[in-house]
């Protein structure tokens, strides 16, 4: 394990001051730790890799349990999830179950019980892994991220926060404090499907997050489709949404939207070694997620 200097702030302002001081000094910015489920694994690798350019030790600021950034609440017409909220809290939250059930489903697929008890939404978002399971539903929800520093706050759409694998627009003195989104319509249906190498403790090979709103004539009046581990940065898949929007639901439409999503992925990433697998699988899970939404609405049957 790499050496660490650990700073334990009493409050958010204190954490932001420390981040700011470290950002100004000697090119060794502080790394926030909450659940530690990514950071401690990286610290092990950093120690064994022995990279020459690595600073001798890491500065770490423990933000776990800071009350200002923990917990879930409804704030006006937005749902607000503090960055230090754990996946277990999201999975079990009545607010999330009502406002964005597919986000709760996604949280429930992350790691193991032990991981979900520690790992936080903020960590999942800011680590910005292409396989981060919270990102597809957050992007489908058009969620925003609030970045705070001693200089103030700024709000960035989650889709723009992540600029590439493990990269975000946040600068070293900024801390993600919350993620916000408007609740899905009460009548909307949503689904999250993850494909991993096994059913527990798996990193997503691909994931699909879909929300659908039907009117009483089975017409699709709104849809949001997003995928995990498919695109260089998380995004909604407009091409697939356009297939559905304004049309009367039938299972064939779901299949067509799935194929369109897969085509969009290949367009964005080019044909890679994994395309032969990922193209049909993404098409299938997007179609299934749409069909699950329709099944919840009584318009389809899934599983068949």
């Amino acid at each position, binding site marked *: 394990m790499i050496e660490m200097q*650990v700073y334990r*702030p009493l409050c958010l302002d204190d954490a932001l001051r420390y981040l700011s001081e470290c950002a100004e000094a000697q090119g060794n910015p502080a790394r926030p730790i909450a659940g530690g489920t990514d950071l401690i694994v990286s610290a092990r690798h950093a120690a064994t890799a022995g990279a020459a350019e690595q600073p001798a030790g890491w500065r770490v600021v423990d933000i776990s*349990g800071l009350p200002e950034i923990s917990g879930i609440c409804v704030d006006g017409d937005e749902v607000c999830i503090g960055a230090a909220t754990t996946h277990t809290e999201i999975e079990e939250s009545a607010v999330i179950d009502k406002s964005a059930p597919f986000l709760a489903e996604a949280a429930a697929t992350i790691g193991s*019980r*032990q991981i979900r008890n520690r790992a936080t939404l903020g960590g999942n978002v800011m680590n910005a892994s292409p396989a981060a399971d919270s990102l597809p539903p957050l992007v489908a929800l058009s969620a925003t991220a609030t970045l705070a520093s001693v200089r103030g706050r700024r709000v960035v759409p989650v889709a723009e926060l992540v600029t590439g694998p493990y990269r975000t627009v946040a600068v070293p003195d900024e801390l993600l404090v919350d993620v916000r989104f408007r609740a899905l319509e009460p009548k909307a249906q949503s689904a999250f499907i993850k494909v991993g190498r096994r059913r*527990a403790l798996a990193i997503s090979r691909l994931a699909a997050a879909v929300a659908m709103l039907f009117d009483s004539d089975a017409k699709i009046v709104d849809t949001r489709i997003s995928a995990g581990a498919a695109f260089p940065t998380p995004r909604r898949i407009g091409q697939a949404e356009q297939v559905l929007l304004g049309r009367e639901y039938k299972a064939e439409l779901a299949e067509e939207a799935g194929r369109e999503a897969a085509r969009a992925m290949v367009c964005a990433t080019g044909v890679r070694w994994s395309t032969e697998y990922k193209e049909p699988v993404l098409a299938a899970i997007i179609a299934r997620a749409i069909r699950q939404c329709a099944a919840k609405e009584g318009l389809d049957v899934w599983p068949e």
Partner: protein
Amino acid sequence: MAGVTGTGTKTDANARGGCCGHEAAATVDVRMKVNGHDVTVSVPGCERLLDTIRERLHLTGTKEGCGVGECGACTVILNGQAVNSCLVLTAQCDGAEVMTVEGLAEDGEMHALQRAFIEHGAVQCGFCTPGMLMSAKALLDADPHPDRDEIRQAIAGNLCRCTGYEQIVQAIESVARQAGPSEDRGLRKDHVEGGCESDGGQGS
């Protein structure tokens, strides 16, 4: 979201690493309750809870398998929740309550889970057993009457290469059956939603 900005007393500040001084310490003092006993340790910032438990407190029942949160051999209960102690810094545990496998037995009597594991042949090489027991304990503490699927979910983060899991699930089921009437079922999800400005977090 401005929220709580309590700066605490000076003593609190010092205990948390110097709120006012802004000195990030390479060594930190941590007070915890481990298996009901108060302990104070002074540890390097990078020390894992697993190392503190095994090397400083000599509670070697907790095992290290993978060291990256994949195998669950190092599972302990931290503030009521099962966690991988290989992924927690001891520095993050000031004020925490920790239970290890050594804390299961009471007055020299094995815990019902320990007896059930033995009776059901749920222990073969035994390396995963302490972690399995702690995941099972955390589950039963939260929900004394889990169904089979909930049991399997609770131990999904604990690898066993010997038993094939069936005997372990049966052992936990047998303890769940002994746990009396199930009228409190469903309470588990009624936890308080923390507001942005209240402490909705798990503490620690």
